[in-house]
């Protein structure tokens, strides 16, 4: 192979479904040892492009134009049985979700060994020793004994390492990584990205890296292409790309991805909600009589202070117990110990954890919640009108008559940037960002003083994320609302929070004003979190 010949060459690719083009005019080249990033928001056609390269498109879709050359060989002219040899051997793929890409009833080692046996015809014994080598290469500790583990025994990051080992097994020329770190925590993401880079350097592998995250692109890519609505709008070298983006869409993407460094000005404010020494322990039950054999300490002695009209950001990785705190404040789970005191001028000071469901009702209109997944947060069988009305009826807030309520709902919808005629539609007719707005309108309907935002933007694209955050900000200014903002995304914290608390394994390890914590982290874990954030984000913080 000559040095200047690209490993992969995509020329003028076009994919259609029933005459409607999903992607068109896609052309790019990947050189040996190069990491090529394909960036775009959901639905822009980046995954479709990768599936077209593997010739794994769903049946309804058809390639109507273009060529894909892998090492000068036209993939579309190959018969299927030769294509099978190309997959795995010359091109390998890793996916977003490590939980579902591995077969849960097969040992992880055997799953990798299978690839070796099929493609390279190795004997079982040789395959095993090769797998152990691969496991060591991708950084799985005690590789020899992990060979016999099942996927559920491994953590998310380790599963992704197994997937990478499987992809590398036949020493492919090209690795397609489709959002390989999106489902992982920041610290694990940093490790996996590091690993991919190491492997590229060691093997001279080419990587087609598909992502929506500009931070990751900045970390990884040599060259970048931006996709929008099925077309590549800009393609450039990395340095050039980040220094002087040409296309307005690229500029917007970059602007939304880089955190703004305008820290909130702190005003004196009274405490609205005081969480003291909160503990939530879930019993682990075993045996015939369901004896309690131990506890999962999801939240273990947390003290927080949320001030009127301000935002407290609660940061932590998955499983750190941050969502459980939100649920305990709302009494969706019962607290084991500690208190949650709500301070209000009209109501006596009360510990929410001690209240019965009936006594809790007056407080339910004070504290509301917005959820992470806009698709499951709304009942698919109810119209938007019914969804928003439910809280008003249940908690006796707002106008009583049906007509007056409808007016109020129209007003709420307009407030969150939707239209009055959306009232009688069903949730499935809306996009993710619109649904999140509906969720906000539903919470607003009962005029709360505190909204618990449980990762409200993590399922959204960056540009939509910026809009939703701006909406929350406007509402805070208008109504002096307080937010408990639960997130794992460090990049949005400066834009939204006044205070921040960092959580690890059920405990708060550090809390304080945003500028203080982000600028000068004291605790080791906070430092680690910040260091794991992509450079683009880290530099801006």
């Amino acid at each position: 192979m000559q040095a200047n010949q690209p490993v992969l060459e995509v020329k003028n690719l076009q994919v259609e479904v029933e005459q409607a083009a999903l992607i068109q005019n896609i052309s790019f080249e990947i050189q040996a040892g190069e990491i090529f990033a394909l960036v775009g928001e959901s639905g822009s056609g980046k995954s479709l492009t990768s599936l077209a390269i593997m010739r794994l498109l769903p049946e309804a879709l058809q390639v109507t134009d273009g060529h894909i050359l892998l090492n000068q060989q036209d993939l579309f002219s190959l018969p299927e049985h030769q294509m099978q040899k190309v997959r795995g051997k010359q091109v390998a793929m890793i996916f977003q979700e490590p939980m579902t890409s591995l077969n849960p009833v097969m040992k992880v080692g055997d799953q990798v060994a299978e690839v070796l046996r099929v493609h390279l015809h190795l004997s079982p014994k040789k395959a095993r020793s090769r797998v152990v080598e691969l496991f060591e290469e991708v950084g799985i500790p005690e590789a020899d004994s992990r060979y016999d583990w099942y996927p559920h025994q491994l953590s998310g990051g380790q599963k992704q390492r197994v997937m990478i080992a499987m992809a590398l097994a036949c020493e492919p020329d090209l690795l397609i990584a489709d959002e390989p770190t999106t489902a992982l925590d920041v610290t694990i993401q940093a490790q996996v990205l590091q690993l991919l880079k190491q492997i590229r350097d060691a093997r001279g592998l080419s990587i087609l890296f598909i992502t929506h995250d500009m931070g990751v692109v900045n970390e990884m890519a040599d060259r970048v292409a931006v996709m929008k609505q099925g077309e590549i709008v800009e393609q450039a070298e990395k340095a050039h790309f980040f220094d002087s983006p040409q296309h307005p869409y690229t500029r917007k993407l970059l602007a939304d991805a880089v955190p703004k460094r305008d820290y909130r000005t702190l005003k004196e404010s009274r405490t609205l909600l005081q969480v003291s020494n909160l503990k939530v322990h879930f019993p682990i039950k075993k045996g015939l009589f369901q004896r309690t054999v131990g506890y999962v300490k999801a939240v273990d002695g947390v003290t927080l202070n949320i001030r009127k009209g301000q935002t407290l950001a609660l940061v932590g990785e998955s499983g750190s117990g941050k969502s459980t705190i939100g649920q305990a404040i709302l009494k969706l789970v019962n607290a084991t110990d500690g208190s949650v005191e709500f301070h209000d001028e009209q109501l006596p000071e009360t510990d929410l954890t001690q209240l019965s469901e009936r006594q809790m009702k007056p407080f339910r209109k004070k504290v509301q919640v917005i959820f992470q997944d806009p698709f499951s947060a709304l009942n698919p069988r109810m119209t938007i009108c019914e969804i928003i009305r439910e809280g008003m009826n249940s908690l006796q807030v707002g106008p009583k008559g049906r007509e007056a309520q409808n007016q109020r709902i129209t007003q709420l919808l307009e407030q969150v940037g939707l239209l009055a005629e959306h009232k009688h539609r069903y949730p499935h007719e809306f996009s993710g960002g619109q649904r999140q707005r509906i969720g906000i309108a539903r919470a607003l309907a009962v005029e709360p003083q505190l909204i618990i935002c449980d990762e409200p933007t993590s399922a959204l694209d960056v540009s939509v994320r910026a809009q939703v955050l701006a909406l929350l900000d406007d509402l805070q200014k208008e109504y002096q609302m307080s937010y408990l903002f639960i997130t794992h995304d460090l990049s949005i914290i400066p834009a939204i929070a006044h205070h921040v608390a960092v959580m690890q394994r059920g405990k708060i390890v550090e809390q304080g004003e945003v500028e203080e914590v982000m600028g000068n982290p004291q605790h080791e874990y906070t430092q680690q979190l910040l260091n794991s954030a992509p450079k683009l984000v880290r530099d801006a913080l």
Partner: protein
Amino acid sequence: MTVSLLWTDMMIWGLILALLAWGRLIGRSAQVRKQWLQVFESKVAMVAALVLLIYVLIALLDSVHFAQNSQASQSFLDALFSHLAHSAERTYSAPFATVEYNRSMQILPNGEVAQLYLPLVHVDAGASVLNHSLLALGLGALIGMLLIAVHLWWRSRQHALDFKVYAGKVWRNQTRLPWRTAYIALLVIVLFFSWLYVLSFSYHVLGTDKVGGDVLYESLKSIRTGVLIGVLTTLVMLPVSLILGISAGLFKGWVDDVIQYLYTTLNSIPGVLLIAAAVLVMQVIMNNNPDWFSTTEERADVRLLFLILILGMTSWTGLCRLLRAETLKISQIEFVAAARAFGVSRFKIIGRHIMPNVMHIVLIAVVLDFSGLVLAEAVLSYVGVGVDPTMHSWGNMINQARLEMAREPMVWWSLFSAFFFMFILVLAANLFSDRVQQVLDPRGHK
């Protein structure tokens, strides 16, 4: 003449009224209407629904009993087919036969003894099958056309279109629902039934059974039994599985444990055994208290009701298990958490958030179970623990015919008729449920 409704009559009419009310209620939702229109967009579903409708109509005709001057009570269907009800022969005769199927010993006027095929009493041997068929088909075509015209007129009024314009659209199959297919199917069904009906005046169209009863009449009377068992058992089973399944999934803890133990236990007892035991117990009770019932008909009806109850008691477990799993899933979804954050009570959460989201499962299970139950009746009657032997049912017909299978030449028509009527019903129910499943199951969509 006074109307005298049996227990099962009242239940089936009550159910029909409830279904109509429910249909009106959910018909208010635009989404539901759209889904049901989608169901009927399939030609197969349209024809299957039409067939089911005809069966239900026959069952309903047979479910209005009235007593006339101290005679045994009669239904509308009996009145329509009274010429068959009172035209019993001596024994077997083949379809369209004019003589009995077996030879009988006969003493001739000259004193000799001979084996002869005796002529049938209630057959008009002189009637020409061809002439009567033509007459029947003409009549059927007339009735069918009339029905179609009325329906067309109604639809064109709904669409505010001229009758001719609308008829043209239907003819070219340009309507949203496949009305052309439905009209053709309706015409075929009407022609078939009018042919059977007209010829039944002159012949035993489907032959006679061992005691000379007309098989066509028996088969038609069996429709009520089959439909009743299919529909009413669901009525018994549905509340049990809904309440228990959703409570188990939502309340978890000890409620879940108790319900799970209950259905696991019930499931591990062989169903036929349980039903047989229950039916035998009931039979003993009935025999000990003969004064409870004034007529054999009432007695048979109560036995049918009891069979429905016991079938319902043994068949709720499957749906209950499905509902429990689905409720477990749905109760973890965030919109339920949102409702709880609004202080919505548990019962409202069930009614507003969980029930509507499990309804597709219920509907699919109900339509699928229907055909299973019709078949179960046949099996149980065959085993001898089904409906009362005096009651007309496909199971009893098959049970009687079973002994004749070994005869040479074979008596095939009882079995054939029971099989044919049951097969069409079960096939239509299955095809229809397929379509319902396809449209309502959210996982079916891409």
